[in-house]
C-alpha cells in the first residue's frame, strides 16, 4: 500500500488565490490551525492576473458614491439575478477590506489628497476601483502572502515554529473531499514534486479554487482553472448554482494565435480607450440595450465629455457591462466589420499622450510590445471575446459561505450567487476579500460548534481516492490526456460558447458523454514525480463534470441574460429571472432542479425606479412597492 502523509488541521483552505488567502488569514486570526493548499507555488495563483482594480465605494474620487449605489450597479450588472444578501454584504464591506489591506502594507495609487485613488470601470456609476496601475491583483495577492508570512513570524516568535498555526502546502493538489456521514472529515491529494499522497484530517474545508476557464479553448484563465472545487463540491453532495452563466470578457488578445485569449484590461476603456470596427466607427453606440438606455451617452461628444464632467454627461457605451460589449463585438465581427485577425480595434493611441498610456497601462504596453509587436501608444490593439469568469458556483449561505454539506465552505469564483448572470469588472477582487473573510470566519465558528465531536476519516474512502489517483499512471495503453483536453476545450468553445443554440448544446452533451467514456481509459506515461500528463489526467475528471453542468444548465434556461445568450431565445424573461437552476450529482449523472430566487428586500428594491424594475420583473412581484410608485409620480 502506498504511503500517505497524514496531517491534522482545524481548517483546510483549498486554493491560494485572493479568497483562499483571505479565508486562511481569518481562520488563523480566529485561533484555528489552518492549512493552505496551493496548486502552484505560493503567490502565483490566478488572482495575479487581475488587472483593473477592486471595487469599493470609498467615495475618494466622487463623494456621491456609497454602498447603496454600488449595490444598485451590481444588481444592474447581474441583470437582477444576484443573491441580494451577498450583493448587499459585498457593497457594505468592500471599503473596510481595502483599508485593511493598506494596514498590511498594500500600496495603492493615490489621489492628490493622499487617499486611495479610484478609477472608472464598466457598469460602475462612479470611479470606484482601488488600483495599482494595471497590476492590482498582484498587489492583492502579494499583500496577503506577506500578511501570512507576518502571522508565521508571530508564531515563530511566540511558539518557536513559524508553521505552528498556519502552513502553506505549495504545489499540492486536492483530488477528493472525505466525509463522515454527511459531514466533511478531510481532504486527500498529492504533492506535485514527488507525487506522494497526503491526507488532511479536518472538520472544515474552505473551497477557494477559482473558476473553470481551462475547459474552454479561448480563455484568459491559467492552467489551474480546471473547476476542481466545483467538481469536488458536487461529488461531496453540495450543489452548484446557475452554471450557465459564463462571462466572456470582451477584450482578449486575438493575435498571434498562441496568445489568443490573454486578457486586455477593461481599464483601457475606463481610462478613455474606444472600440472601433474596420470602418473606423465607434460601434458601441448602436448596441446600448433598452434597460441601460437612460445611463449611456448617445453621441461621441457626450461620451467624451463624461471623463472630465461626469455630472453633466452620460457614460460612454464602451463602458457597458461586459456581457453587452462582448456580444456587440461578436456581432460586428459576424457582420464582416472585424479587424484583420477576427477581432475589433481597441484604441488608446489617438486618445491620450504616450506618456499617460505608459503610466496608466504599463502592463498592457509591455504585453502587446513583447507578445504581438504592437506599440499601443502608436496603433490600436486587436481584441475579441475570451472566456474569463464563471458566475455560477457552489450554492452557499451568504453570511458564512457554508454549502449544503456541513463543514464545506466556498468563497470567491468557486461560489455562486454574488454576481447574478454577469459580474461587473472590479467586483471580483472585492468579492474575494469580503467573502474570503466571511468563509474563514464561518469555518472557524463551525469548528467551535463541533466541540469534541469531530468527524473521523473513513479509511475506505482514502483507499478509493488513492486508487482513483493512481489509475492513469498504472494503465499501459490508453487515451492521451492532452488530446482529450483539447477536444473538450474545442467542444465547449464551439457549442456552449458566447452564443448558444439548443441543437448545438445537445450535440455538446453527446460529445461530453463520449469524452467521459474515453476519460475512463486515460493513461499517463512516466513516474509520479512532477508529471504534468498525470496531473492533467486527474484534472480532466473535474473539467468534464463541470462542462456537463454548464451545458445542461445552458440548455435548460430558455432566455438570454448576462453570461448566457441563446440564439433561439434572444429575450430576457421575467419569469425565468425568478428561477435558479441547481446542479446536483448522484455519482453518475448531473441532475438539474429549479429553485425560486431569493427576493430583494423592499427597502433595497426602492433604490431603483419602478420603471426600471418593470424591465426585469413580473407585475405581481412589483405590487406593493408603494415608495417606488410615489418616486415615479414625483418625476
Amino acid at each position: 500500500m502506498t504511503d500517505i502523509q497524514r496531517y491534522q488541521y482545524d481548517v483546510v483552505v483549498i486554493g491560494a488565490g485572493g479568497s483562499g488567502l483571505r479565508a486562511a488569514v481569518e481562520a488563523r486570526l480566529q485561533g484555528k490551525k489552518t492549512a493552505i493548499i496551493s496548486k502552484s507555488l505560493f503567490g502565483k495563483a490566478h488572482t495575479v492576473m487581475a488587472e483593473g482594480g477592486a471595487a469599493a465605494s470609498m467615495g475618494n474620487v466622487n463623494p456621491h458614491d456609497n454602498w447603496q449605489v454600488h449595490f444598485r450597479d451590481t444588481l444592474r450588472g447581474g441583470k437582477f439575478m444576484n443573491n441580494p444578501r451577498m450583493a448587499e454584504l459585498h457593497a457594505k464591506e468592500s471599503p473596510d477590506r481595502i483599508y485593511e489591506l493598506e494596514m498590511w502594507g498594500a500600496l495603492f495609487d493615490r489621489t492628490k489628497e493622499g487617499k486611495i485613488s479610484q478609477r472608472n470601470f464598466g457598469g460602475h456609476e462612479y470611479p470606484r476601483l482601488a488600483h495599482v496601475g494595471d497590476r492590482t491583483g498582484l498587489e492583492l495577492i502579494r499583500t496577503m502572502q506577506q500578511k501570512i508570512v507576518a502571522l508565521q513570524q508571530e508564531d515563530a516568535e511566540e511558539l518557536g515554529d513559524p508553521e505552528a498555526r498556519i502552513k502553506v502546502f505549495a504545489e499540492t493538489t486536492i483530488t477528493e473531499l472525505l466525509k463522515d456521514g454527511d459531514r466533511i472529515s478531510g481532504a486527500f491529494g498529492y504533492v506535485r514534486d514527488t507525487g506522494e499522497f497526503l491526507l488532511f484530517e479536518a472538520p472544515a474545508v474552505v473551497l477557494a479554487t477559482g473558476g473553470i476557464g481551462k475547459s474552454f479553448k479561448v480563455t484568459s484563465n491559467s492552467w489551474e482553472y480546471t473547476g476542481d472545487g466545483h467538481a469536488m463540491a458536487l461529488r461531496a453532495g453540495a450543489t452548484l448554482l446557475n452554471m450557465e452563466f459564463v462571462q466572456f470578457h470582451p477584450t482578449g488578445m486575438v493575435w498571434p494565435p498562441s496568445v489568443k485569449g490573454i486578457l486586455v484590461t477593461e481599464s483601457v476603456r475606463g481610462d478613455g480607450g474606444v472600440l472601433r470596427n474596420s470602418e473606423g466607427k465607434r460601434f458601441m453606440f448602436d448596441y446600448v440595450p433598452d434597460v441601460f438606455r437612460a445611463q449611456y451617452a448617445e453621441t461621441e461628444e457626450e461620451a467624451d465629455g463624461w471623463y472630465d464632467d461626469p455630472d453633466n454627461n452620460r457614460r460612454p457605451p464602451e463602458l457597458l457591462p461586459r456581457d453587452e460589449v462582448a456580444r456587440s463585438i461578436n456581432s460586428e465581427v459576424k457582420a464582416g466589420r472585424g479587424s484583420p485577425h477576427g477581432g475589433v480595434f481597441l484604441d488608446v493611441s489617438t486618445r491620450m499622450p504616450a506618456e499617460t498610456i505608459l503610466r496608466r497601462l504599463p502592463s498592457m504596453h509591455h504585453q502587446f510590445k513583447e507578445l504581438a509587436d504592437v506599440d499601443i501608444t502608436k496603433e490600436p490593439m486587436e481584441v475579441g471575446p475570451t472566456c474569463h469568469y464563471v458566475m455560477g458556483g457552489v450554492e452557499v449561505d451568504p453570511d458564512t459561505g457554508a454549502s449544503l454539506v456541513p463543514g464545506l465552505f466556498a468563497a470567491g469564483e468557486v461560489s455562486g450567487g454574488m454576481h447574478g448572470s454577469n459580474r461587473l469588472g472590479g467586483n471580483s477582487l472585492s468579492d474575494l476579500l469580503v467573502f474570503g473573510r466571511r468563509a474563514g470566519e464561518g469555518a472557524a465558528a463551525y469548528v467551535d460548534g463541533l466541540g469534541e465531536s469531530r468527524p473521523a476519516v473513513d479509511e475506505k474512502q482514502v483507499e478509493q481516492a488513492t486508487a482513483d489517483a493512481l489509475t492513469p499512471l498504472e494503465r499501459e495503453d490508453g487515451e492521451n490526456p492532452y488530446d482529450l483536453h483539447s477536444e473538450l476545450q474545442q467542444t465547449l468553445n464551439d457549442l456552449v460558447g458566447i452564443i448558444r443554440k439548443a441543437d448545438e448544446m445537445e450535440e455538446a452533451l453527446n460529445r461530453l458523454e463520449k469524452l467521459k467514456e474515453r476519460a475512463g481509459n486515460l493513461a499517463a506515461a512516466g513516474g509520479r514525480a512532477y508529471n504534468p500528463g498525470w496531473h492533467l489526467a486527474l484534472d480532466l475528471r473535474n473539467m468534464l463534470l463541470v462542462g456537463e453542468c454548464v451545458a445542461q444548465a445552458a440548455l435548460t434556461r430558455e432566455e438570454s441574460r448576462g453570461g448566457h445568450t441563446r440564439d433561439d431565445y434572444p429575450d430576457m424573461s421575467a419569469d425565468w429571472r425568478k428561477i435558479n437552476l441547481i446542479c446536483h450529482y448522484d455519482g453518475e449523472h448531473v441532475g438539474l432542479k429549479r429553485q425560486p430566487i431569493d427576493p430583494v428586500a423592499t427597502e433595497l428594491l426602492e433604490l431603483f425606479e419602478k420603471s426600471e424594475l418593470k424591465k426585469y420583473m413580473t407585475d405581481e412581484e412589483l405590487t406593493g412597492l408603494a415608495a417606488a410608485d410615489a418616486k415615479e409620480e414625483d418625476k
Partner: protein
Amino acid sequence: MTYTAQFRVWRGDAGSGELQDFKVEVNEGEVVLDVLHRLQATQTPDLAVRWNCKAGKCGSCSMEINGRPRLACMTRMNLFAEDEVITVTPLRTFPVIRDLVTDVSFNYEKARQIPSFTPDPKIKPGELRMQQEDVQRSQEFRKCIECYLCQNTCHVIRDHEENETNFAGPRFLMRIAELEMHPADEADRREIAQEDFGLGFCNITKCCTEVCPEHIKITDNALIPLKERVVGRRYDPLVWLGRTITRRKAGKDTPKVPNTTP
C-alpha cells in the same frame, strides 16, 4: 510560417540528467513555452515544466534558454534563427526537482526572515494619507513577480553556494528597500540588511537588473539607495541626533525574525 525547430532540453532529476534532442513544430507568434507544451502533447507527456499564467504576470516559467535566464512565456521564437538549436535548461542556482523544474524554497525561507511591514499602531484603517510621489518608489519594487531570475543570476550565490546562509539575494534586499522606503513603515532594517542579509556582498554589477522581466531597476533604485542608507545609519554622527528627533524608535534596530532559519 510553420517550421521545424531543433530543441535540446535538459531532462533528469536531482540525481542525474542529460540534454535530449527534439524536432518540434513552431508556428507564427509562438513563445518557447508554446513549444514546450507541444513537446508535452506530442512527444514527452511527462516533461516537467512549471508554468501558470502564460502572460508574464506570475513568474512561474523561469528557465535558462540558450544560457540566458528568461521567462519561457515571454520568449518569442522569432528571437532565434529557424536553424538555430535552442537549448533549454533549468535555473542553475537552485536544486533540480525534475527536468526544467527547480526547488526555489530558498526564496520563501529568506522572505520569512525579513521583519514585515510595521505601521504605527495608533493609525486606524482608512486614516493613512500618502502622496503618489512617496509611494511610487516602493511601488516599483512591488511590481516584482517573484520569478527569481535575479536570484538565479546573482553571482554571489550562483557561483558560491556557501554564501546562501548569509545572503538574501537581490529580490529580498529589494524587499528590504521597499519596506524601508514605505512611507508608513516604522521599523529599521538597515542594520540587518548588512549583517544578516548580506547587502555588502553586492558589488553592483547589475546582472539582476539585466534579467528582470519587469524591468525594475533593482540595482540603481533599490540596492544602491539601501547601501547609502546603511552607510548613513552607521557612520553619520548626525544619526545619533536624528534618531532622537525622527519618528523612528530611538536607536532601535529591528532584529531579524527569530526561529525562521531552518
